[in-house]
């Protein structure tokens, strides 16, 4: 019953007024960031790190997690009203959500995505609560070799699943790992790849990389779109912000199924919210009695994917919290935030800081309730944000990025770096090199090298240690499979395409 006490104590932590306030601030910011296209959760969390530096870590992490799952709620609004995903994972919602809005059912589309997000989001947190401890106690047995192979699996899965080309995903992964080797080597004290620049002795901060690649590059993309004049039109919120009995009946199934799909995909490394919502969409289309309505305003096509991408966020926190190894870009940034506070997520955290872990998990129940209120009765206020001209919004994002980057060390070099990584991120996008694998491997790089060297020290430099236990062997095999998967996926995609035709 010890566990139950910890879970209940977590509520005592997150119900403290200060933490309630930060939960609210997090989900409020998350909704704003979700509604606004152009800036996503990764850049926002990275920008919050310098700002929250003096804060109590529990409150700061509660807020950052709020941003992480809050964006998924806001993202659907933009998808429905201007057919632009406010957040990458809402891309499927543009298909039927926008069509519903064109038919005067924007209110119902917004309502079903808020309600679906709430049900699936809460379901996800329940599953996170249930599965966290067993996984964490299993991970207690992990040695350096297990950790090394686990990180290898996380990286190969993300590399092969996030982009169009697994080779380019691997390239991004290796670039991240190489950037992570810049700085003083912890074991020997030798400076590596610092190019004689004193600031590089502490390494290249992941905040500048994330802010550059996610925020600055997005601004460059947005400004190009303005120049081309490819702006979208904002539809008004039409119809009542509620569902008819018929619509509700059609949405219940997709919400539950989407929640389950989203959570499972979230736990697995690599796939993430976008793939979860695509899977949910295709599942619903297949199960539906009216598949011909999909793409023309079927409510199932909004309910399922929105449920899936919200359950995905709770699922994605499972490996982050229990193993300390994130399975995607945004959770990698969250791990970076933990590390900045000197907190290492993983099995030991459940033993040493149950107040923090369960305070954080329990705050998500409350955060989801807050999000339901923000995104249903109050959504009209957030939609007003879309009236801000993007020609003003994007330049402001650069200034905010500058504050965040300069605020860490007060160094102008960090400013030049966000510009450099911003331009690099823009080019990467143009040539289809995914950015998430780079961020993940940058955050994990140091840990990965340490566990590699510890394992090799234990074994007397014999690489056989990576094939000594069932866990390591399984993980190595899974890494190999994850690289092989992309060669199978094009066939599956071809099958789906012939289905749609």
């Amino acid at each position, binding site marked *: 019953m010890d566990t139950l006490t910890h879970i209940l104590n977590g509520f005592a932590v997150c119900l403290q007024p200060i933490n309630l306030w930060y939960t609210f601030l997090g989900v409020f910011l998350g909704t704003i960031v979700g509604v606004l296209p152009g800036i996503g959760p990764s850049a926002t969390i990275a920008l919050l790190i310098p700002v929250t530096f003096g804060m109590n870590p529990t409150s700061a992490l509660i807020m950052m997690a709020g941003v992480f799952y809050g964006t998924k709620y806001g993202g659907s609004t933009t998808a429905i009203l201007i057919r632009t995903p406010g957040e990458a994972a809402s891309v499927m919602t543009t298909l039927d959500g926008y069509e519903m809005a064109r038919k005067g059912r924007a209110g119902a589309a917004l309502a079903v995505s808020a309600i679906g997000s709430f049900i699936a989001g809460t379901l996800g947190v329940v599953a996170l609560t249930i599965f966290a401890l067993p996984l964490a106690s299993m991970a207690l047995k992990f040695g350096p070799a297990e950790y090394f192979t686990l990180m290898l699996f996380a990286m190969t899965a993300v590399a092969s699943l996030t982009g169009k080309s697994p080779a380019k995903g691997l390239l991004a992964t290796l670039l991240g790992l*190489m950037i992570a080797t810049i700085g003083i080597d912890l074991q*020997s004290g030798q400076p590596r790849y610092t190019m004689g620049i004193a600031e590089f002795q502490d390494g290249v901060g992941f905040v500048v990389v994330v802010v550059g690649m996610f925020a600055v590059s997005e601004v*460059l993309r947005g400004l190009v779109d303005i*120049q*081309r004049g490819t702006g979208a039109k904002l539809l008004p919120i039409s119809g009542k912000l509620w569902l008819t009995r018929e619509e509700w009946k059609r949405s219940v199934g997709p919400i539950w199924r989407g929640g389950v799909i989203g959570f499972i995909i979230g736990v697995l490394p690599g796939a993430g919210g976008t793939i979860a919502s695509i899977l949910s969409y295709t599942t619903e289309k297949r199960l539906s009695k009216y598949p011909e309505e999909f793409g023309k305003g079927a409510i199932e096509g909004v309910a399922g994917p929105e449920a899936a991408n919200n359950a995905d966020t709770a699922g994605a926190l499972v490996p982050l919290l229990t193993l300390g190894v994130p399975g995607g870009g945004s959770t990698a940034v969250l791990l970076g935030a933990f590390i900045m506070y000197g907190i290492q997520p993983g099995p030991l955290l459940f033993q040493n800081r149950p107040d923090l872990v369960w305070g954080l998990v329990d705050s998500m129940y409350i955060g989801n309730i807050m999000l339901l209120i923000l995104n249903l009765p109050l959504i009209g206020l957030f939609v007003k944000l879309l009236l801000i001209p993007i020609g003003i919004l994007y330049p402001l994002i650069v200034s905010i990025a500058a504050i965040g980057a*300069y605020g860490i060390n*007060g160094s102008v070099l960090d400013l030049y770096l966000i510009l450099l990584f911003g331009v690099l991120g823009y080019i990467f996008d143009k040539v289809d090199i995914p950015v998430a694998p780079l961020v993940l491997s940058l955050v994990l790089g140091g840990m990965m090298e340490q566990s590699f*060297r510890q394992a090799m020290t234990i074994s007397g430099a014999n690489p056989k240690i990576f094939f000594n236990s069932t866990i390591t062997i399984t993980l190595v095999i899974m890494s190999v499979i994850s690289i092989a998967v992309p060669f199978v996926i094009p066939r599956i995609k071809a099958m789906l395409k012939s289905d749609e035709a």
Partner: protein
Amino acid sequence: MMADRIILGVTLVLAALYFWATQQIPSLEIGDPLGPKAFPRLLGIGLLLTAALLAVEMWKARHEKPAPAEPGSMVHYLVVGGVAVWTWLYFYSFEPLGFIIATVLYLLGLTGYFNRGKWIANVSTAILFPVFTYLMFTKGLGVSLARGVLPF
């Protein structure tokens, strides 16, 4: 695809540079059988394998027709280049001029171009935003921002 050839070339050059830079790390192997060079060497090998995979992908896609160039692709080079240079100037003047003045100038320039004609909105944002955020971050949150030539 031209872009893919360039990526392959850059990957190979990068691998060579990284191997060379790894050689330059002085090593004193005490109590650590691997030293600071072993893991980077693995990464270098990984980069070479990636280059090989890239080549395989290009070979498999050799019959695919390249996607037609996006219309106005020159425009995006100009926009990205222009914004990058303007942002570089912003960062260059960040400390000498201070956050407020540098940001006002930066925002005036960009909003004036990308939100053309809406002078009242542009000028008021360009002035109010930096002043407000400066006060909020330096006085409220204790994050230091460059003061520059202004006395506060």
